[in-house]
């Protein structure tokens, strides 16, 4: 396995990446740049899209590196990832669009 030959440096690399992204998110959340707050895209602020993209990047590092899924067999990788990648966006699409719809009906 890869981790047997590699040292610990990759762990700390991932740690610094996660820490940097989190700090960046918090800074954005406090400063709230007006360009990102005032631009509305797909029903929400551009800032929220930035947060969501950064969160997905963090999630990818945790799953692929820390949980070691990136180094597993490709069949296992997709067995784990596909159900989530199909069902979660589907769930979000249904619930968020229905939420917006009930708002219009209120």
């Amino acid at each position, binding site marked *: 396995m890869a981790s047997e030959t590699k040292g*610990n440096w990759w762990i700390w690399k991932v740690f610094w990446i*996660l820490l940097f992204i989190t700090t960046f*998110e918090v800074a954005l959340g406090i400063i709230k740049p007006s360009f990102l707050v005032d631009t509305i895209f797909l029903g929400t602020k551009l800032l929220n899209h930035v947060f969501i993209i950064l969160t997905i990047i963090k999630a990818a590092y945790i799953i692929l590196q820390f949980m070691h899924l990136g180094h597993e067999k490709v069949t296992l990788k997709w067995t784990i990832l596909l159900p989530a990648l199909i069902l*979660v966006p589907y769930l979000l699409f249904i619930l968020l669009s229905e*939420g917006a719809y009930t708002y219009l009906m209120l």
Partner: protein
Amino acid sequence: MDEALDEALVKDHKPAWKGGDQPYEASYGKLMMWFFLITDTLTFSAFLASYGFSRFKYPDIWPNPEDVFSHFPFLHGEHPLLFVALMTFILIMSSVTMVLAVNYGHKMQKKKVILWLSLTIVGGAIFLGSQAWEWGHFIHGDKGGINTQTEHVVHIAEGEKLSSVYALMGADGHDGTHHHFTVDQVITSLEANPQYNIRKANRMYLTNEDAIAYLRENASEVLLGANLKNNEYGHPLFADYFFFITGFHGFHVFSGVIILIIILINVIKGTYERRGHYEMVEKVGLYWHFVDLVWVFVFTFFYLV
């Protein structure tokens, strides 16, 4: 099945149905942990998606997270996001110590596994303590609110700036005593202190006179703090989701800490040393990273967005 036959089956990839063949090249235990984590992913996704549903249903009156979670232990003033950022850091850090424990497990270095596993438990415990503080603060409340017949909560403001019921009533919200105010007391106070007014749930500020008229007509009770039925921050669902989602995640962290302690005892006793591999540490590690992963999303959707 004797060992020679077992070996032959694996080597020739003969009947996979009889076991011994690992198409995923992962052990049964690890595979089942992954399958459990998929189901848990879908559970948490459903929670966060339904939180999104409610937010999209009440976009005008949903509480602003930065008005709610704005305090840091032992610090005065407003510090939005800082405390949860610290909690995130603690959980990421404990994830790092967990990977290190798994890594030293592969190398069969028992003492280092014990060290890093212990630090992971400490990180988990600190996170749980932080969450207890966060819950305590949320339940006790901060600025107070006034419930109205429309079931929308309005807040006390000073001009165009959010103030608090305590400031209006000249009381200290954090002196440890149990406060109780009536709507009449608040209205009397508003009449006596014309610099105060209210902010409606849709973030509209009323003048002092309009505020008094509005409260006379609509106000039903003064809310201090939060429970499952109503809360001072806004829509009742806001507190319900907060308790449910962070509570469910906190329970995961709690069970994670318990499981880690059991595994640590086994490591110290030398169970895995005798077994010849530290795969159990790896499997629990998967669960622990998952708890970190969920928090990353809770952090984004509850506190940032």
